């Protein structure tokens, strides 16, 4: 299992500003994942954060809007840049375990509830 600490847990931000969310894992992991859950929607993968290389972004998400850092195997940050009210969501970081072929379990941080006003 993995324990993930994510902060801040919530924030209210002004339009046009940026917020950096931090995620700390209690063990070394190769990949960390950032998700967004908009109200009434499913968890949507934003990007995969790999240590030592650029993050891999899913369709619809770009690095300029959601820059990610991954300085070591236990830590990652996601920045939501130039925020607008449409960015109001819950942001979650996650790590996964698998049997070498499939993802068999995922662990999540407690989430960051972002409100942009």
């Amino acid at each position, binding site marked *: 299992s993995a324990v993930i600490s994510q902060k801040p847990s919530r924030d209210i931000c002004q339009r046009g500003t940026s917020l950096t969310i931090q995620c700390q894992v209690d063990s070394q992991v190769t990949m960390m994942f950032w998700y967004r859950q908009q109200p*009434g929607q*499913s968890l949507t*993968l934003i990007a*995969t954060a790999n240590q030592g290389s650029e993050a891999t972004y899913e369709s619809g998400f770009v690095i300029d809007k959601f820059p990610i850092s991954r300085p070591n195997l236990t830590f990652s940050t996601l920045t939501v840049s130039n925020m607008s009210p449409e960015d109001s969501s819950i942001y979650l970081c996650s790590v*996964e375990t698998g049997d070498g072929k499939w*993802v068999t379990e*995922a662990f*999540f941080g407690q989430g960051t509830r972002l409100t942009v006003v």
Partner: protein
Amino acid sequence: DQQVKQNSPSLSVQEGRISILNCDYTNSMFDYFLWYKKYPAEGPTFLISISSIKDKNEDGRFTVFLNKSAKHLSLHIVPSQPGDSAVYFCAASGGGLGRGSTLGRLYFGRGTQLTVWP
């Protein structure tokens, strides 16, 4: 395109009775399925999983059933307890959808809010 669907946004059940949460998927490449429970202000926590080689997996009060031909799975909670009140997410994984590694990504449904009342 929603590849994992939970068509019931909410479910209300009396304590002691069975809760049945349903999930449908569209991609036949999915081979591993997971259920997560989420309380307010917390991240989702893993509940139970099932691989496609099985049609049933049981863990205490929780049982997941998989019907591959119908691309349907369900989570049964018996007996339901007020502490089970939470949002339940269904997720699916498939190796053919990998992102540069042997691990495929997870696709999530939108969740079902379960309320268990005394």
